[in-house]
């Protein structure tokens, strides 16, 4: 997704003279062409994430549309108050694109992990949160929401799915109409694992995690009523992420709770092992086998 990011940024700066990019000393080499072609709209502002967000807000107040790009925990968690005050409260058109999704930097340890970004950003009014699952999805969501006047967050993951999806920002997409009793909700690249882990369950894909449209909320409630079990799958903390979003939608829609509502994701603890992301997925049951087992546990409980 990072290569796509560089291409999308190049195109965006080429098309929109008000677009500018501020990086926090990461992806400098990746964005070399952007820097060469647009030297007065590319700024590597070093390692000062709080001021980086503040600057972006000030630029937006003058009509520019800045993109801020750095590692997830530093731009989201360290600069959270700047995001709250300078971007969300003031409602400025600033786009944050992070790298280092969840435990992508597995071996670097918990300081470099970020599985709470979606949870905390979803709590901020005006913040639009996107978790694309593929390069094509990132490019589409980014371009479709460009210049919409709101602060936006895109979470780029190192891994992506290889499926062709038809998605829209702020909409949930029914990927598969299943015949089983389970209704699966998933966001990000785990869509691929989810489709492979189950053959007859209904799958709804949710690449936008805030401000879902009323139509999508209605669809989610209608599908929930038709299914016995609901399982949400995400590579994010189970506190405040996709699972909670779906749960809230069902509560708001006054839908009766399913027999089982299960959230699969990162549990409420620090992942203090190292290794690589695949090992973490395996340990958390976020690989095909793990997801399959969870779904089968559901089945066994039904018998």
């Amino acid at each position, binding site marked *: 997704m990072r290569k796509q990011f560089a291409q999308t940024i190049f195109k965006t700066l080429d098309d929109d003279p*008000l677009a*500018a990019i501020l990086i926090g000393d990461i992806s400098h080499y990746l964005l070399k062409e952007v820097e060469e072609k647009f030297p*007065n*709209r590319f*700024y590597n*502002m*070093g390692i*000062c994430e*709080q*001021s*980086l*967000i*503040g*600057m*972006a*807000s*000030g*630029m*937006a*107040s*003058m*009509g*520019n549309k*800045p993109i801020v790009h750095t590692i997830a925990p530093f731009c989201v968690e360290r600069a959270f*108050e*700047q995001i709250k*005050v*300078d971007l969300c*409260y*003031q*409602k400025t058109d600033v786009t944050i694109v992070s790298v280092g999704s969840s435990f992508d930097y597995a071996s670097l340890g918990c300081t470099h992990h970020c599985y709470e970004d979606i949870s905390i950003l979803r709590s901020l009014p005006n913040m639009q949160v996107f978790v694309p699952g593929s390069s094509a999805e990132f490019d589409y969501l980014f371009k479709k929401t460009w210049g919409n006047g709101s602060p936006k967050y895109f979470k780029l993951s190192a891994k992506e799915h290889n499926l062709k999806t038809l998605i829209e920002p702020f909409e949930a997409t029914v990927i598969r109409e299943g015949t089983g009793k389970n209704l699966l909700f998933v966001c990000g690249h785990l869509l691929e694992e989810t489709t492979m882990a189950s053959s007859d369950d209904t799958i709804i894909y949710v690449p936008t995690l805030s401000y879902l449209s009323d139509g999508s909320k209605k669809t989610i409630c209608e599908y929930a009523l038709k299914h016995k079990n609901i399982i949400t799958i995400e590579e994010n903390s189970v506190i405040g992420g996709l699972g909670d979003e779906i749960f809230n939608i069902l509560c708001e829609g006054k839908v009766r709770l399913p027999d089982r509502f299960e959230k699969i994701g990162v549990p409420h603890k620090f992942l203090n092992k190292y290794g690589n992301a695949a090992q973490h997925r395996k340990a958390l049951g976020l690989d095909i086998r793990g997801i399959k087992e969870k779904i089968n546990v559901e089945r066994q409980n039904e018998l």
Partner: protein
Amino acid sequence: MTSKLKKFRKDILTVSFLNKSGHVPSAFSILEILYYLYSEVLREEDSFFLSKGHGCLALYAVFLDLGFITQEDFDSFSLYDSILGGHPDRNKIKGVLCSSGSLGHGLPMAIGAALSKKIQKKCGNVYCLIGDGESNEGTTWESAILANHLKLENLICLVDNNNSQIRSVSTRTIKEKFISFGWHVLEVNNGHDKSQVLNSFDNISQDKPTCIIFNTKKGHGIKEIEENMFAWHHRAPTEKEMEKFFKEMGE
């Protein structure tokens, strides 16, 4: 003190008394800076960011004088439906560029605005008022590095040096710090003196970001508040105190 600056202080005391709110001493320390800035320095193409938002009563008093807001707006200060809060909201007040309140946010925003002016080849300066207490925040010094790095000669940081931090962590040697970060630095001995304040604005650098340090008194104009600035930091006057203060200013 001119009668106009006395009137501003009376307006502020009155609305603070009636609505039982406001950071009066902070407003009194920046009143002259703001008034001379707005009435004699700022041009159409310039921008101003009030970073120390708790001094906003001074901004509101000046805005009222300039006709940016109405008397009714001013009188509603801090009430439930007012457009004028205890810290300004840029989405409610025309002419306010940043919603401040949390310290250390204005200067990074002003840097972004100054950079944008350059990107868009717009003329005009960006002014930002911060406080010496606010300078405890790390973003002040991140910003000091960034403004120098970006060569923002169109940025002017105004420091209300009212010694409000002397009981905790005083940001000593603000002047030396900004100089060491590569800024052009001016110091105004009396930030309440018209000619000294205006003179400093005539000496802004053409090739570096400028920092003007205004030595001010928190609560300037009322002895009781000047001498007890900590007790008065966020406190409205009583009716009896109002009478005393108005008398002191020569009613």
